[in-house]
C-alpha cells in the first residue's frame, strides 16, 4: 500500500486576473517538486470529474446553479472581490471535487494508505451558500459527506492548518455532531471567523494563533487542542485541508512556520489516523502563495504521507513474542 497523488491539468487552466495570488504557477511549482525522484514511489492518477450529486450534499442546489450560471464562455466573472471564474474554473472546481471523492474511495476501499490532492482552486472558504476567498466548492466538506453517503463512514474529521480559518467547512459542519472541524489559523486575519468560542454543537475546535507566532505555538495548538479533540472524536476518516500559507515566506499570512513544522503536523495527523481509522487520510491542497514556500512544504507533507523516502528501519522488537512461545 502506498500514497496516491491526484491532480488534473484543468486545475492549472483556472486563471484569476493577473496579479492574483491564487495563480496557476502555484500548481506548476507543486507539480515540479512532486516530479523529483524522492517521489518515485507515488502512484499518480488524473482526478476524475466531480459529480453534481456529491456537491449538493455540502452546498444548496440553488448555489450550485448560481456557480454554474456564473461560468463565463469567455473573459472573467467576479463572484466577490477575491473570487473569480473564467471559462476553465467550473471544470477545475469539479476536478477538485472529483479528486476528493476519488481520494475517499481510494482509502475507504483500502487501495491506498493515504492520498494527496494537488488541486486548485482551494475550497475551505466556500460556505453552503456563498463563494468567497478564491473558493467555489468546498471539496473537503464534499469529500467528508461523500464518505458518509458512499462508504458508511460515521464520523469524519477535517483538520485544517491553512493560515486562514476555513469558515466554509465550519459553516457546513456547524450542527452535525458526526462531523468534526479542527483548525489552526492566524487571528485576526481573513475571513474573521475561527474564535475558540465558535464550537458548533461541540464538533468544532478552533485554535487561533497570533500574528508572528511560529512553530512552537503551532505545535502547542495542535498538540494541546486539535489532536486531543480529534482523539475524543474517534474519526473513521481524517481529511486534511492542507494550506501552506502559514509558511514564514507567505505574502498573505503572518505566521512563521517552516517545512519542519508542516512535516511534524503531517506525521502527527497520520499517527492520529493510524490510531483511529487504520491510517485513512485524504489531504487536499488549500492555500500557499509563496511558490518556494508552497513547493517546499508540499514536498515534506507528501514525503511524510509516504512515511519518508528512505528505508524505514526499526529497532528489533520483532520476534520477541514468537521467541517466547
Amino acid at each position: 500500500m502506498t500514497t496516491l497523488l491526484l491532480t488534473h491539468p484543468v486545475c492549472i487552466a483556472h486563471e484569476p486576473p493577473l496579479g492574483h495570488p491564487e495563480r496557476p504557477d502555484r500548481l506548476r511549482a507543486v507539480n515540479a517538486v512532486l516530479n523529483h525522484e524522492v517521489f518515485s514511489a507515488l502512484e499518480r492518477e488524473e482526478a476524475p470529474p466531480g459529480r453534481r450529486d456529491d456537491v449538493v450534499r455540502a452546498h444548496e442546489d440553488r448555489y450550485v446553479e448560481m456557480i454554474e450560471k456564473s461560468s463565463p464562455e469567455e473573459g472573467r466573472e467576479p463572484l466577490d472581490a477575491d473570487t473569480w471564474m473564467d471559462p476553465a474554473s467550473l471544470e477545475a472546481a469539479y476536478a477538485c471535487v472529483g479528486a476528493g471523492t476519488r481520494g475517499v474511495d481510494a482509502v475507504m476501499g483500502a487501495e491506498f494508505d493515504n492520498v494527496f490532492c494537488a488541486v486548485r482552486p482551494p475550497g475551505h472558504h466556500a460556505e453552503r451558500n456563498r463563494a468567497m476567498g478564491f473558493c467555489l466548492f468546498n471539496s473537503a466538506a464534499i469529500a467528508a459527506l461523500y464518505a458518509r453517503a458512499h462508504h458508511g463512514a460515521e464520523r469524519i474529521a477535517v483538520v485544517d492548518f491553512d493560515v486562514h480559518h476555513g469558515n466554509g467547512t465550519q459553516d457546513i459542519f456547524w450542527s452535525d455532531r458526526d462531523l468534526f472541524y479542527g483548525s489552526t489559523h492566524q487571528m485576526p486575519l481573513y475571513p474573521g471567523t475561527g474564535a475558540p468560542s465558535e464550537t458548533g454543537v461541540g464538533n468544532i475546535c478552533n485554535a487561533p494563533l497570533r500574528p508572528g507566532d511560529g512553530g512552537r505555538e503551532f505545535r502547542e495548538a495542535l498538540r494541546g487542542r486539535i489532536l486531543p479533540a480529534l482523539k475524543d472524536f474517534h474519526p473513521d476518516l481524517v481529511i486534511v485541508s492542507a494550506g501552506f500559507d502559514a509558511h514564514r515566506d507567505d505574502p498573505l499570512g503572518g505566521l512563521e512556520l517552516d517545512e519542519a513544522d508542516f512535516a511534524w503536523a503531517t506525521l502527527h495527523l497520520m499517527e492520529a489516523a493510524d490510531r483511529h481509522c487504520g491510517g485513512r487520510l485524504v489531504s487536499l491542497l488549500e492555500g500557499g502563495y509563496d511558490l518556494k514556500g508552497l513547493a517546499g512544504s508540499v514536498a515534506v507533507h507528501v514525503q511524510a504521507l509516504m512515511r519518508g523516502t528512505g528505508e524505514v528501519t526499526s529497532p528489533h522488537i520483532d520476534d520477541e513474542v514468537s521467541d517466547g512461545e
Partner: protein
Amino acid sequence: MGNETDDQAIAQLSFEAALAELESIVERLEQGKVDLEESIAIYERGEKLKKHCEQLLKSAEARIEKITLKGDGTPSGTEPLDVE
C-alpha cells in the same frame, strides 16, 4: 481475537506503555508459568501490541528530505530535514 474494545484500547496506548506490556508478556511466556489457554490469549495480545509499536515507530522514523528549491519553486537538490 477480534475483540474490538481490546483493539481500540491498544490503539490508544503510547509507544512506551505498549512496549512495557509487550515485555511483560514476553517475560511471562518465557517463564512458562501460564497455562496453554491463557498463553494463547496473551500471545495474541502480544502480536497486536507488537503491530501497534511498529506502526508508531514507522511514523516517528519517516526520513524526510528537504528539497532545496530555486526562486521559482523548481527543485535543485535535497538535504535531510530535522522534523523535531
